[in-house]
């Protein structure tokens, strides 16, 4: 009996020891997995973005894009995130929605810009989406929903337009896992605080979004993709108390209203492609 235990122990140690020692090797670098993943992600991002641009107007005017990019830059720089790796795309759609795409593309609907009561509220949504990017939630969600094989096919560009369309729908209108949303919320609050933007605006936005849903005819995609807005707002308030920051408003309400008017004007124009 003692012999059996000794042998079993030795075999277990050999197995786990081999696993541990082999695990010390950085295979991802050796096989260039990181690079291949990034490359595929970029391809995938461009493919999906093309599909979004084909079916919707994209606002590319500097006066509009620079404001949103400025908010993104402020959050990124304060948190040591390379700002240039994230590209913002403003799409003329009335839905109140924003979502991250593979390849670190951030799509913001004009409906969301017009719904936000302040630039700080929009910053909250942007910080949340940046957090999803930082945690690689987008690719994880895609792989989980459509499978690794399909993701590889998509990034190879051999898939039909219907699959791409469905992928756009998946990324823009379905929720992440609850833990991923909580993770993005928590990091979002932290990013905002580091950038001296009061996370209270994010909580206010979520409360308002939740309460106004039934009174307004707008399509609140954000509510469908991010359930329990009230709970999330309460959690944001709780997290806000743990942060130390000096609130510096992004812009005053007059400037924000002017910006919203500029966006609305672009939406109504026909030459916004």
């Amino acid at each position: 009996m003692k012999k059996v235990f000794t042998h079993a122990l030795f075999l277990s140690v050999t197995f786990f020891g081999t696993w541990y020692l082999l695990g010390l090797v950085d295979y991802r670098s050796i096989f260039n997995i990181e690079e291949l993943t990034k490359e595929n992600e970029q391809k995938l991002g461009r493919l999906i973005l093309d599909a979004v641009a084909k079916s919707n107007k994209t606002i590319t005017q500097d006066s509009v894009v620079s404001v949103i990019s400025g908010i993104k830059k402020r959050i990124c720089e304060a948190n040591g995130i390379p700002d240039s790796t994230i590209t913002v795309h403003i799409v003329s759609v009335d839905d109140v929605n924003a979502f991250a795409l593979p390849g670190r593309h951030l799509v913001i609907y004009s409906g969301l810009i017009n719904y936000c009561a302040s630039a700080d509220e929009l910053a909250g949504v942007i910080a949340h989406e940046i957090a999803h990017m930082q945690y690689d939630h987008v690719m994880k969600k895609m792989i989980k929903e459509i499978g690794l094989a399909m993701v590889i096919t998509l990034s190879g560009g051999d898939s039909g337009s219907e699959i791409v369309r469905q992928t756009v729908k998946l990324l823009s209108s379905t929720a992440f896992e609850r833990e991923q949303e909580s993770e993005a919320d928590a990091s979002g609050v932290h990013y905002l605080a580091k950038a001296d933007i009061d996370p209270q605006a994010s909580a206010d936005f979520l409360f308002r979004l939740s309460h106004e849903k039934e009174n307004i005819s707008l399509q609140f995609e954000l509510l469908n993709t991010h359930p329990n807005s009230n709970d999330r707002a309460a959690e944001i308030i709780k997290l806000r108390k743990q942060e130390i920051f000096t609130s510096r408003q992004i812009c005053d309400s007059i400037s924000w209203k002017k910006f919203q008017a500029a966006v609305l004007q672009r939406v109504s124009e026909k030459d916004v492609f």
Partner: protein
Amino acid sequence: MTEHPSFSYTPNEYEAEKASNSYLMSVIAVMIGLPLPVINLIATAIFFIANKRATHFVRWHCMQALLSQGFTFPMNVTGVYWTLSIVFGANIISNNYIAYMTTIVVFNIAEFIATVYAAVQTRKGNHVEWWLFGPLTHLLIKA
């Protein structure tokens, strides 16, 4: 990894063939069972049950073959589950995953070689005791 202690009696030709078949069973099952590791275990378990009333030599080797499959089964199931979670789930190909898969491939190759060796030796009527599984089989199969 293997030892050649003498058995309590010298098996006859029929017993040697049967005992050898218990190992061949798992070797053949490996071909079908690679993606589904449970096949190997089921094959050797069925063979053991079918030879429950066989002679001591046959039962002993059937049990040793079964135990060896029982050892690799959880390892391989984990590997298959982990792979599926990458292909269909949210997991990624991590360094830990590659290290695990390499480890189980090494252990499976070692087990495969030992199985073929045991099949050849038992066919010749030689008694082969594997490291760990030999002493364990002695505890489970009494004369």
